[in-house]
């Protein structure tokens, strides 16, 4: 088990290196001189060619992409993530301010999408063909088709503007004002979780239907166990195996969705930072965000893989 985790961690490091390198390469294809972004058009016209060359040298822009990449990497390990010329701030500082917001949002969305999604799937499978199944399946199928930014807008229109129940934008830290923070988060979290909830429900239903057909479930019935015990204790654990696999992937979707939702609800998180940085061609920030998001996704996938062993003792780590 320990060797497996160590092996996976080493693999994860390679994956992250590859990911950041790919993005670094892609960002470097940005048309235009990167120097222009550091100095601004007016400064460039004012400076002599020699001074420009010197500035280029100072910033290390005269070296090859590979050299620059490894330089960036070395600096990252020393805690220097570069400077953002768009926000005029340290990249690490920017990310450390924005990241907790997105992670808080994401964890809430992940929690609710799992619990509600799996519950819906169980209800649909157990009541197969009944109205509860029809309603749950339709809800799940609709949930995976809604453009989440649109849902956000519609919710703002209904609950924020027309009914006036919820604040329509912004973010408040739960440590400052828990009640206000929760009220502000209700709509964003619903939007963020809806897609994952739908796919969790669909998958749970399918895999639950497979499991409850098996012999050991029939044995449990014939032993006279209650339905609740059979479903929750005997069937659920086995039917969760495929669902857990996909949950690892869902972290990606939630992060992708955060970009849209933070835009709709004006939440100052990583998603918005990344969008602003991408449009501003601020590639130090993009690079930093990619690294952080990559680490989170890779780590959650690792946790998912380890949790298999608990769910399915047949899984051997070697």
């Amino acid at each position, binding site marked *: 088990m320990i060797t497996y985790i160590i092996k996976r961690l080493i693999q994860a490091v*390679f*994956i*992250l290196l*590859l*990911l950041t390198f*790919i*993005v670094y390469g*892609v*960002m470097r*294809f*940005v*048309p235009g001189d990167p120097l222009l972004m550091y100095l601004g058009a007016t400064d460039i016209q004012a400076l002599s060619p020699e001074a420009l060359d010197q500035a280029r040298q100072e910033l290390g822009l005269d070296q090859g992409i590979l050299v620059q990449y490894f330089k960036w990497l070395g600096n990252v390990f020393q805690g220097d993530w570069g400077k953002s010329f768009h926000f005029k701030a340290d990249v690490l500082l920017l990310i450390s301010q924005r990241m907790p917001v997105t992670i808080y949002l994401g964890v809430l969305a992940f929690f609710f999408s799992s619990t509600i999604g799996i519950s819906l799937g169980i209800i649909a499978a157990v009541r197969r063909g009944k109205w509860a199944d029809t309603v749950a399946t339709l809800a799940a*199928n*609709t949930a*995976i*088709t*809604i*453009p*989440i*930014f*649109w*849902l956000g*807008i*519609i919710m*703002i*229109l209904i609950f924020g*503007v027309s009914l006036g129940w919820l604040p329509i934008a912004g973010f408040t830290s739960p440590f400052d004002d828990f009640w206000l923070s929760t009220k502000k988060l209700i709509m964003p979290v619903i939007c963020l979780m809806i897609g994952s909830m739908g796919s969790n429900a669909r*998958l749970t239903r*399918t*895999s639950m239907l*497979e499991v409850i057909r098996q012999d050991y479930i029939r044995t449990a019935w014939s032993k006279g166990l209650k339905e609740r015990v059979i479903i929750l204790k005997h069937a659920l654990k086995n039917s969760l195996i*495929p669902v857990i696999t996909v949950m690892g*992937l869902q972290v*990606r*979707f939630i*992060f*992708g*969705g955060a*970009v*849209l939702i933070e*835009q*709709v609800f004006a939440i100052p998180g990583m998603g918005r930072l*990344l*969008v602003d940085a*991408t*449009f501003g*061609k601020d590639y130090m920030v*993009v690079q930093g965000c*990619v690294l952080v*998001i*990559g680490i989170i*996704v*890779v780590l959650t*996938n690792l946790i998912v893989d380890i949790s298999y062993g608990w769910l399915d003792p047949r899984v051997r780590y070697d």
Partner: protein
Amino acid sequence: MKQRRKRQEKFMEERPPMSGWRRFARVFFGRKVVLFGLIVLALYVLIAIFADLIAPYDYKQINLQQVLAQPSGEHLLGTDTAGRDVLSRLIYGIRPTLIVGSATILIAAVCGTILGLIAGYFGGWIQTIIMRCIDALMGFPMLLLALVIAAVLGGGMKNIIIALGVASIPTFARVMCAQTLIIKENDYIIAGRSLGFTNWHLMWNHIVPNAFPPLVILATMNIGMVILMEAGLSFLGIGIQAPDAAWGSMVSAGYNRLTSNPMLSVAPGIAIMLIVFSLNMVGDGLRDAVDPRLRGTL
């Protein structure tokens, strides 16, 4: 002899009563929701083809006398900030949606299949290199990957297709690699190899056709997701922008007029939902009809 024939007849009777196609048709068309999806899709395609005849106005026509008109008999869904007819823009918006959806999936499926096929067939270090790169791309949200690529290439339909296509490659490569690894262990591949068939011949004529069904289903099921992502990118302001009609940017443009003209955002959103829902249902139906065992894996 007679007895033998009898036995043969008995054997014939025991054969499944339906051919593959009939079973497929029965399962596929048997579910109302799949049928609904098919009809909606057919309608969308027809509207896209005959947009010029159906649309009441020119979708790019700016009319400053009729800015932000409410829905009425003249303009069924009202007009936008430049006085363009929303219904006409909605109708013309089907074209880029369908084109981006199918072209993206085509790029992703072709590239992903080739990569997965090569990785799975040759194995060893080739597989390691290809699949680790795919893993690296999988370690990042698709929408963000597409966003970064689109930001580099710039907006416009062609670049969006490339960005979304590249971002969708990993899914196909993974499925194809897994399929190839299974198929290549079959006896007919080993037989083919001992007969001296070239690798290319084995891959193209024997592995690809056998791996086809899951790929087609995966493609159908992914078009919806690509359409959602395209709408998301357009919403962020990097996809297809006005005056061209794209549903995502229409939602975004209507965002500021939410209280006065809600239809500007509501209508394109419903259009997106309807097509994605239909595509997903057709994909589900296809999967259940072709191979129910694929449930839960695709």
